[in-house]
């Protein structure tokens, strides 16, 4: 079974430029998460989807961040415009809607904003 796929793995941009990250969760996983992980820190939730509905986006900086999961499968996270402080690893995770609480993480996208 394929794991959570993320692309790109690395991205370097200049500040004020836009950037987008893509995530393909494990097949059948209804719940999808986007986390931001700063260097030396734990993952911090940005947004959680149940199917195509964003059910928790309270920590998403909505002035510059947006996300979508149009068909309840793949998801895209966008930053426009990027700021220096956005440099971090952006992790996508997914889980089933069943009894298991286990989240499966992708390898992340490391963003560097210059």
């Amino acid at each position: 079974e394929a794991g959570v796929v993320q692309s790109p793995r690395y991205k370097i941009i200049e500040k004020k430029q836009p950037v987008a990250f893509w995530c393909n969760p494990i097949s059948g996983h209804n719940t999808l998460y986007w986390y931001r992980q700063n260097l030396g820190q734990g993952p911090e939730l940005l947004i959680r989807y149940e199917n195509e509905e964003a059910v928790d986006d309270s920590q998403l900086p909505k002035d510059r961040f947006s996300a979508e999961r149009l068909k309840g499968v793949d998801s895209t996270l966008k930053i426009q415009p990027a700021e220096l402080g956005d440099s971090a690893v952006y992790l996508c995770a997914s889980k089933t809607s069943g009894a298991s609480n286990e989240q499966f993480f992708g390898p992340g996208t490391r963003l560097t904003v210059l």
Partner: protein
Amino acid sequence: QQQVKQSPQSLIVQKGGIPIINCAYENTAFDYFPWYQQFPGKGPALLIAIRPDVSEKKEGRFTISFNKSAKQFSLHIMDSQPGDSATYFCAAGRGNQFYFGTGTSLTVIP
């Protein structure tokens, strides 16, 4: 308010030692307490998890101790090996909502 507090920030042990990582949580409604292991350049991977109806869970060399009254839980790694060198995160949550600790960087010296 930080929902999960983790310590220490870093830990160095000799091969065969038993590193212990501690976490404390705030919300008594949490009912799932996992530990994740993360290697450089990789996403976190579930190592072991516990629910509050038991005080200890062991899987291989990894053991979680859980103290519900103190709202604390810890990870013990028995007979640690250099391959265990990684960053460990505790988490706590309920349903589909989780909060992560700040991580512990473990180095096991051969």
